[in-house]
């Protein structure tokens, strides 16, 4: 629900994006960022993790899957700042490459949830009636499966792999977007500018795509930022349980699984992958709070 489009300054508001919004956005980002340094720091750390995921081959030059039998479970040294694991692999390198898997699983699963959830929610909220009821009852049933249990069930059917874990997490997160979108559409499609556009002869598809959707994008974006850390943790959990990324691929979850067996002799194996998940999830949550502030200032 973009406040700009509904504001009395643009009574017809046939252009959902109010003019001048873009130039104001950067200024507002700066203002919000200065007022909420934690959110800014979160966003910066998320970007750093993103850079780490993209630049893994250049940052971690040691091969993350190369085993070295002379370096098994060595405590941190200059050569291996995060130590080595039970197969003599470099801990730092594995943590860096792990960012790739975590980001991939976190971002793509939520993109999948949005790609399915938003159109379905849009249709349900826009047409209402029996179709809406049918979709919502199915969504209720889908939501009744605890996220993790559903993901485990789906992985059982599909088989364990990164792609299937991403798929399972995405499908698990989908009903949230159906609900959110539907709720937003229900209120947005009653706005005057939607009625106005309809009176001017706009068809359903045009109404949904040009008038309703742009006004709910920000709320969906905020939800996505807080959903990604949940998805990242879910991927780590699935991999930790052995249902996600399969060894020897460096996933933070599988690394923690291995670390659990050597807590007494090699505790450093458990420190870094977990800290990485924690930092990334925390940063996403902080950035999400800031984004909410930025996109919907009326809440504060």
């Amino acid at each position: 629900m973009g406040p700009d489009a509904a504001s009395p300054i643009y009574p017809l508001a046939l252009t959902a994006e109010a003019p001048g919004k873009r130039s104001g956005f950067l200024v507002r980002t700066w203002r919000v960022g200065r007022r909420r340094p934690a959110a800014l720091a979160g966003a910066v750390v998320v970007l750093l993790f993103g850079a780490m995921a993209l630049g893994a081959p250049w940052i971690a030059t040691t091969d993350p899957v190369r085993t070295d039998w002379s370096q098994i479970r060595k405590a941190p040294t200059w050569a291996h700042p995060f130590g080595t694991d039970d197969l003599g692999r470099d801990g730092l390198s594995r943590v860096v490459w792990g960012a790739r898997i975590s980001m991939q699983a976190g971002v793509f699963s939520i993109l999948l949830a949005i790609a399915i959830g938003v159109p379905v929610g849009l249709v349900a909220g826009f047409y209402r009636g029996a179709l809406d009821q049918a979709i919502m009852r199915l969504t209720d049933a889908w939501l009744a499966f605890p996220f993790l249990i559903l993901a485990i069930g789906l992985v059982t059917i599909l088989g364990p792999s990164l792609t299937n874990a991403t798929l399972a997490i995405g499908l698990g997160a989908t009903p949230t977007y159906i609900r959110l979108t539907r709720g937003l559409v229900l209120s947005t499609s009653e706005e005057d500018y939607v009625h106005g556009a309809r009176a001017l002869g706009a068809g359903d598809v045009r109404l949904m795509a040009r008038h309703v959707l742009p006004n709910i994008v920000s709320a969906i974006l905020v939800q996505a930022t807080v959903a990604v850390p949940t998805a990242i943790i879910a991927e780590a959990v699935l991999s930790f349980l052995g249902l996600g990324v399969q060894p020897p691929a460096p996933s933070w979850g599988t690394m923690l699984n291995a670390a659990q067996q050597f807590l007494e002799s090699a505790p450093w194996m458990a420190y870094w992958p977990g800290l990485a998940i924690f930092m990334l999830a925390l940063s996403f949550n902080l950035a999400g709070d800031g984004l909410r502030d930025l996109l919907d200032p009326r809440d504060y």
Partner: protein
Amino acid sequence: MTEFLVRRAFISAVTLVLISLIVFTGVRMIPGDPARVMAGTDADAAGLEEVREKYGLHDPIPVQYVRWIGLALRGDLGESIRTRQSVAWTVAIKLPITVELACLALLIALALAIPAGVIAAVRRNTAWDVLASAASLCGVSIPNFWLGIMLILLVSVRLGWLPASGFVPLFEDPVANVKRMLMPALVLGTALAAVLMRQTRNAMIEVLSADYIRTARSKGLAGFAVVVRHALRNALIPVVTILGLQMGALMGGAVVTESIFVLPGFGRLIVEAVFTRDYPVVQGVVLITASSYVLINLLVDISYTVLNPRIRIGGGVDGA
């Protein structure tokens, strides 16, 4: 109110039917012969035929569904491929462990979240508020299995205060049982505490600005009495709703927690079942979890409809 309750119960019934359909379809989506899926790879021709007969696998799919749901309603969820025990029995002996774990986690979560949320709301925008919010944010962001591993490292390996794993039945040795349950419950309760604290804080802030709180204060009631007797009681209503909705996360969390602390509960059962391709057990566990989630939330809704006069008189909240 009756209309609302009937409507709410009807929606739950529809949801339960859809859940059973999803689970039924899910198992059919496993590649291969459904009889082989239900009987396991070791089953001989006679065993396969027995399964086909029991579930009527020669019949059309809708008939199969009706037969399956009929058996499930009578408590027959098939038998475990691995142990040959009935799924219902397997779940029944594992469930108390998870329920105990969940109750302890809930207690810990409430003990942390309610006071912290109330203090954060009453002392809004002070250091206490910031501290509580930061703790809540960390609680949501920390992966609980890592928290578990770190706790084992600190409390069991370094300090040697509590055993890291193993399980002792509650009625055999209550002290040893609680000693082993404490860390898992703390791990499971952390995320819940974080969510509940946020809810309590937000609900308290809203309630504290209400007119009846001003009235109570102007009557000369002491601050503490107003906060606890008037504000908290009303603020807890949305918190209870969130608690019901968080049950799913609690059940999911139990899977991980029980795996780390090697507790032979419901959560570990599903992981083991997945690894051994024990489909009847996976199917049973998923069906029971989802159904109990729906029933718990129905109970939560009914109970607060009965408790909250505003909803009781006003004719109900939108259940959709």
